[in-house]
């Protein structure tokens, strides 16, 4: 059974978001609305604290004229869609081979210790979360992590410290809109 969260999510499809969704739908032939599902899910997730409740997934189904289960199937297949609330700043460390050669394992240990969480956990204040993910295509700039829409590469402990400070200071933009 897929991962689901019982936490209530406030759903708000703003006019701007709906305009963007309609633009995305317009990229496909009229009878192929479903094709817009992945890009629409990204947009909707970005506008809803980076996660997709069942209710929100149902809303997407309604917009695209497809069955709710077609959305659940897709959301649960891809790793970038979150089915539970996540930390505001989620550090996704690439932990595949090339990043390992450049010390990502030690860096992840450091990050976990610094934030006081394990991998896959959110800090108590909901600010941070650490995840280990598979190859992000930044092998030459290892170690690295993804934060929102952006990559932070050639990391060191010092750079990670600075990144955490920048998050706390509200200097980090998560999404490129």
């Amino acid at each position, binding site marked *: 059974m897929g991962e689901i969260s019982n936490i209530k999510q406030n759903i708000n499809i703003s006019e701007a978001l709906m305009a963007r969704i309609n633009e995305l739908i317009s*990229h496909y*032939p009229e009878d*192929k609305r*479903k*094709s*817009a*599902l*992945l*890009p629409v*899910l*990204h947009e909707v997730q970005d506008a809803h604290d980076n996660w997709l409740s069942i209710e929100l997934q149902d809303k997407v189904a309604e917009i*695209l004229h*497809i069955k709710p289960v*077609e959305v659940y*199937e*897709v959301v649960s*297949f*891809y*790793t*970038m*869609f979150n089915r539970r609330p996540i930390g505001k700043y989620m550090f996704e460390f690439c*932990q*595949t*081979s*090339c990043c*390992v*050669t450049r010390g990502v*394992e030690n860096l992840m240990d450091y990050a976990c210790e610094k934030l006081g969480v394990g991998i896959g956990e959110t800090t108590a204040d909901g600010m941070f979360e650490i995840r280990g993910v*598979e*190859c*992000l*295509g*930044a*092998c*030459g*700039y*290892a170690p690295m992590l*993804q934060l*929102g*829409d*952006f*990559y932070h590469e050639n990391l060191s402990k010092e750079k990670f410290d600075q990144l955490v400070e920048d998050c706390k200071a509200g200097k980090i933009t998560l*999404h*490129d809109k």
Partner: protein
Amino acid sequence: MGRKILLDKINIPGIKTYEVYRQNGGYASVEKALKQMTPDEVTEEVKTSGIRGRGGAGFPVGMKWSFIDKKSGNPRHLVCNADESEPGTFKDRYLMEYIPHLLIEGMITSSYALGANLSYIYIRGEYMWVYKILERAIAEAKAAGWLGKNILGSGYDLDLYVQVGGGAYICGEETALIESLEGKRGNPRIKPPFPAVKGLWQNPTVVNNVESISAVPWIVMNTGAEYAKIGIERSTGTKLISASGHIKNPGVYEIELGVSVEEFINSDEYCGGMIDDRPLKALVPGGSSVPILPAHLIYKTAAGTDRLMTYESLSDGGFATGSMLGSGGFIVYNDTTCIVRNTWNFSRFYHHESCGQCTPCREGTGWLEKILWRIENGQGREEDIELLWSIQSKIEGNTICPLGDAASWPVAAAIRHFKEEFEYHIRFPEKIKNRDHFVAEPFDKVRHLVAKQTV
């Protein structure tokens, strides 16, 4: 200095923007193709060039184009595979990020050749900022009249969009990519029918890698014959290599196919030699799925000839003593690397990325990972090595798509070339407790322990 075709303009300030790109000869191939050439003539040039698919499989691009079904009269599509996810590979991202209009120009010229009026670039979801770069570049191209109806008054129409994935390596497989583009789970399709006959929305479709499509403008401008002069034998042209691992200068390099591996690793023009000057232990030359090569088979083939950066030379010796050029994901390992841990890491990757559709891959990839994890963590048994070999051989060739092979080959190659290291892990579990076990004590220093023991 090797010849540059894709990256020759990469250092021009502002080449990311439409204006600068255009001022430097950008979009000339669209003008030439649409005004002076028929679609079939463009396809002929690409065939003549001999360029092989740069995504990993190495299938000739021109031949793939010639398979597209033009008889049915159904709308045709060109889909660019920008779902770059093979561990060790980050070259397409470099092109799209720093010279996005090159890909767009290639998409227009190639779509014209295929008679496609609606084309897509499918980019992996993690490259979200590159997706935005491409969206903006497409808008610029459209505003300048390179997309839309009746381009350059030629009567040719093309709409081009970029579509973003959701995080799934398998979508790099062309039929899984098409499924994903249709808004579905990325399950590879059963073939036949091939996309050239029934692809996107059951219409004839060609799926090409970013690098392949980006080479088309040069081929159209300079002819396929000129392209074919670069490189050696059936490895024509230039190739982007993503270099990473224990080297001084990791990054993306454009090479003329035919450079020697030794030069590529050690020359300051490319990788610049080994980091901290530690010894070279192993090489994965073409992305995580290709067989890993041990030190003695990297610079020389088993036959004693120089190993070159070509499709043929890297695969010289077959899987017994060779590997593959693959996607050009060139990962270099020094003596601190634990091959068992690295193989486990790759297996974890394939286990995580298996779509789950067919039995051998769904069940086998997880089994491989679990056994490798046990061995790496000091709980291996002597019979596990044979078991790993057996499992990988039962996955390989029996799956719907090549992910099963990709998961099998690294395990097979690691056992083939580094069996002693597996034995060491199994027989001396107390010596590998720390995950950095070969940092302080590289395997060469303890190899004699394995040799002494007889079983």
